[in-house]
């Protein structure tokens, strides 16, 4: 996703003189092409994220469209108050882009994990939160964010994620994209878990369960129409996110759901437990630790079905 981000930034900076890219001393060589096109609109702000967000805000107040980029925990939790006060309070068109969302940097442990960023950013007034599921969605999200004209947080994975879409999909902030149709289980995936969602859907098929898969790229604002339809028409709705179960996407859906007690579907939330990581391991290892695997999701869904039958 990060290569798509860099490439689309270059395209956009060439078309729009308001675009400025601020980096927190990462992306070695990644932005060489960008710098060739817009050298005066690239600022390496150093390892100083609070200042970077303030600088971006000052630029936005003067008509520019800054995009501030660094590793997810450092561009969210590290400079949270600057995002709240400078960006959101002033309702500025600053785009905050975190690379390595969730467990992308699993091997670097919890300093570099980002399982709280969706929770933190979505509770700020004026903020929009987008978690693209592949490189096509990254490009589309960036363009939509610039057009939006207010604070937007875009959460990227890392690199070499498989493509979900064949080409750039029709992308509207706050509107989920159906990737695969189904009738029994509705899987709402946000961000970099989409490949797992599709693998899980295939596994459901072996059991004769038909699964719809949705790229629920915008966590805030929620696509309430899509949620209403899903909870009315499916047996189980599953939220998937590489993020903590507290306060994230699934949590957001459950907040919405308690106001609609007549829902037909059960809700199953897949995400990261409320613990830090203390042991070495790759992204897949970390996912296994938190039971974010297709086998575990299928098993937990089966349990839900069993309970429903017993309940009726």
């Amino acid at each position: 996703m990060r290569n798509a981000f860099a490439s689309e930034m270059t395209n956009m900076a060439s078309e729009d003189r308001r675009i400025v890219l601020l980096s927190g001393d990462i992306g070695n060589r990644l932005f060489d092409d960008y710098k060739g096109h817009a050298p005066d609109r690239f600022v390496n702000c150093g390892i100083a994220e609070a200042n970077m967000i303030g600088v971006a805000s000052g630029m936005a107040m003067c008509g520019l469209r800054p995009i501030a980029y660094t590793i997810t925990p450092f561009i969210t939790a590290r400079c949270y108050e600057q995002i709240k006060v400078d960006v959101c309070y002033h309702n500025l068109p600053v785009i905050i882009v975190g690379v390595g969302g969730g467990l992308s940097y699993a091997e670097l442990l919890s300093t570099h994990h980002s399982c709280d960023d969706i929770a933190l950013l979505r509770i700020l007034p004026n903020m929009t939160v987008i978690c693209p599921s592949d490189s096509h969605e990254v490009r589309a999200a960036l363009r939509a964010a610039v057009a939006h004209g207010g604070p937007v947080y875009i959460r990227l994975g890392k690199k070499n994620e498989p493509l979900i879409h064949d080409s750039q999909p029709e992308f509207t902030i706050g509107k989920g994209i159906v990737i695969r149709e189904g009738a029994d289980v509705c899987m709402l995936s946000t961000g970099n878990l989409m490949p797992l969602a599709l693998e899980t859907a295939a596994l459901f098929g072996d059991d004769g369960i038909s699964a719809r898969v949705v790229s629920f790229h915008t966590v805030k604002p929620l696509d309430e129409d899509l949620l209403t339809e899903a909870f009315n028409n499916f047996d189980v709705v599953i939220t998937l996110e590489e993020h903590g179960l507290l306060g994230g996407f699934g949590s957001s859906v459950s907040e919405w759901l308690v106001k609609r007690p007549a829902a037909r579907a059960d809700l199953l939330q897949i995400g990261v437990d409320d613990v830090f990581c203390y042991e070495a391991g790759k992204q897949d290892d970390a996912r296994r630790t938190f039971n974010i695997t297709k086998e575990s999701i299928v098993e937990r869904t089966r349990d839900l079905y069993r309970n429903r039958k017993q309940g009726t």
Partner: protein
Amino acid sequence: MQNTQTPDFKELESLAKKIRARLVVMSHRTGAAHLGGALSCVDIIVACYWALMNVDPQKAFDPGRDRLIFSKGHAIATLYVALAMKGFYPEELLDSYAQCGSKLAEHPAPYCVPGLEVATGSLGHGLPVGLGMAMAGAINHVPYDVFVVMSDGECNEGSVWEAAMLAPARSIENLVVFVDYNRWQATGRSEEIMALPSLRQKWEAFGWNAYDVDGHDIRAVVEAVRLAPRGDGKPVAVVAHTVKGKGVSFMEDDNNWHYRIPNEEEVQKALKELGQL
């Protein structure tokens, strides 16, 4: 774009007294605190709006205007009064200060009145935002200056020094920071709470053209900025040595006035000292 007209400094001194008197009355009437720090920065604000800055209240949103960020937001009453007196809005609006529903809260809200650039109140935000504005001037090829007024206590915040390192690295020259060095912060002497002495040398070491001035000598404040070199790629830091509670003898250098509200008798005494009775 520097304002080069020579102001009548006597007139500005008398204006500063009027602003101080108004601040004392406003604090008394509303029970709003932070009078000491509001009084200490009056002369810096007068120097900016009546001598240094290119601003026109009739064109408050002109892209080419100079900008001032009042980063020590707790003392915002000083800017509210100055902007009113400068003509950005009617002085009567000041009567609503800190009242329920007023545009003029004890910390400024974003875009609350014309002329107020940035909402502040949490310390350490103003300089990074000001730096972004200054950089935008270069990117947009619009020649304006950005002024940031901070408190000395505010220099405790790490974000100040993040911005202080980036500005000279980017050769930003259209940025001036004033530190209202009144030597007090909320609960004690600022240079005892943090290692603040050699403040000018700190800015200099970070790559700024830095000056010590008497922050109550409006002419000195103006000259420090006007005489700073241009073309050497350095922003300007003015360490303005001030007195908390300046202008009212019984408030001067007494940190109780960080939170205390003057009573009727004290208001009369203060107005008399400021020549406003």
